[in-house]
């Protein structure tokens, strides 16, 4: 039950941690870690969010139901990200599966050449994917 009154000291401590984390996120942004930069930046942001939610927003002292509600929001957001990206991330897969050299005029030589190409491509594909 949120009759719980959080002490001022806790608030100050959280505030200071948030400031430190803000500084940290700026600092690490200038170090090159490749794609890890994003991971670190987001982890710090999630950590900051957690601090705000738990202490400033008192979730730590609240009933289970509110945890459930907050969690549902986050989970639904993830559903939206995941399923939308399932489209964008996999668009290229099929393209490479069906995009094969296609001759404009289906002449005989072209067809034989094509067959060879395809065989070569297939063994290449097999090599590339496994």
């Amino acid at each position, binding site marked *: 039950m949120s009759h719980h009154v*959080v002490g001022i000291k806790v*608030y100050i401590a959280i505030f200071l941690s948030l400031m430190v984390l803000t500084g940290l996120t700026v600092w690490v942004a200038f170090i090159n870690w490749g794609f890890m930069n994003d991971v670190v*930046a987001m982890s710090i942001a999630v950590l900051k*969010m957690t601090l705000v939610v738990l202490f400033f*927003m008192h979730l730590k002292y609240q009933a289970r139901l509110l945890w459930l509600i907050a969690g549902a929001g986050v989970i639904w957001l993830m559903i*939206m990200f995941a399923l939308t990206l399932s489209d964008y991330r996999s668009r290229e897969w099929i393209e490479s599966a069906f995009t094969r050299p296609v001759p404009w005029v289906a002449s005989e030589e072209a067809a034989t050449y094509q067959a060879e190409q395809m065989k070569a491509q297939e063994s290449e594909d097999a090599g590339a994917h496994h």
Partner: protein
Amino acid sequence: MSDSHPSHLAHQFDHVEQQRQASTMGIWLFLITEIMFFGGLFTGYIVYRTMYPEAWTAGSHELDIALGGFNTAVLIFSSLTMALAVHAAQVSNRRNQVLFIAATMILGLVFLGVKVVEYSAKFEHHLIPGPNFHFPGDIGTHVQLFFSFYFTMTGMHAVHMIIGEGIMLWLLINAAKGRYHKDYYNPVEVVGLYWHFVDIVWIFLFPLLYLIGRH
């Protein structure tokens, strides 16, 4: 109805605790709708960022880290003052309530002021998407896409801040009248939750917009 009804207990509730729980639950439900609201923008952001990483980096480099960082600090500080305002209400301290709500409002205005400065700089640099947009080089159109998201996301965030300022003005007046005390502080708490949420959105916007590929 009955004499057990204090004046701050609305007619539909049976007792104060029920009313308090209802309002807390209501605001949390509202906040998840807000998560989904901003979520739509974040989805678009992710999709396009993975499509055009260079443009996103280039766009991000046009933003001012100093101003963005300063604003982040301002907003976090305002979250602290907001939390302290709720605390003041919980311990029935009227003077501090007024003080901290006012401080929160001022910090919010500082944030918005800095935003205005940033926006006008973008305007001068022709970085507002649309016919006047100009970005040298060939990735210009995609940088424009970055700025579309920059403006829509920070714009929506700013709209939330402005609404917050309005609600807080109302809160300030009532706090000054001494409406809130240890037995009844839901409005302060509810507004606080909203304000913290707006802060959280910014916590994500800051690295996602200002800090891409800075190395």
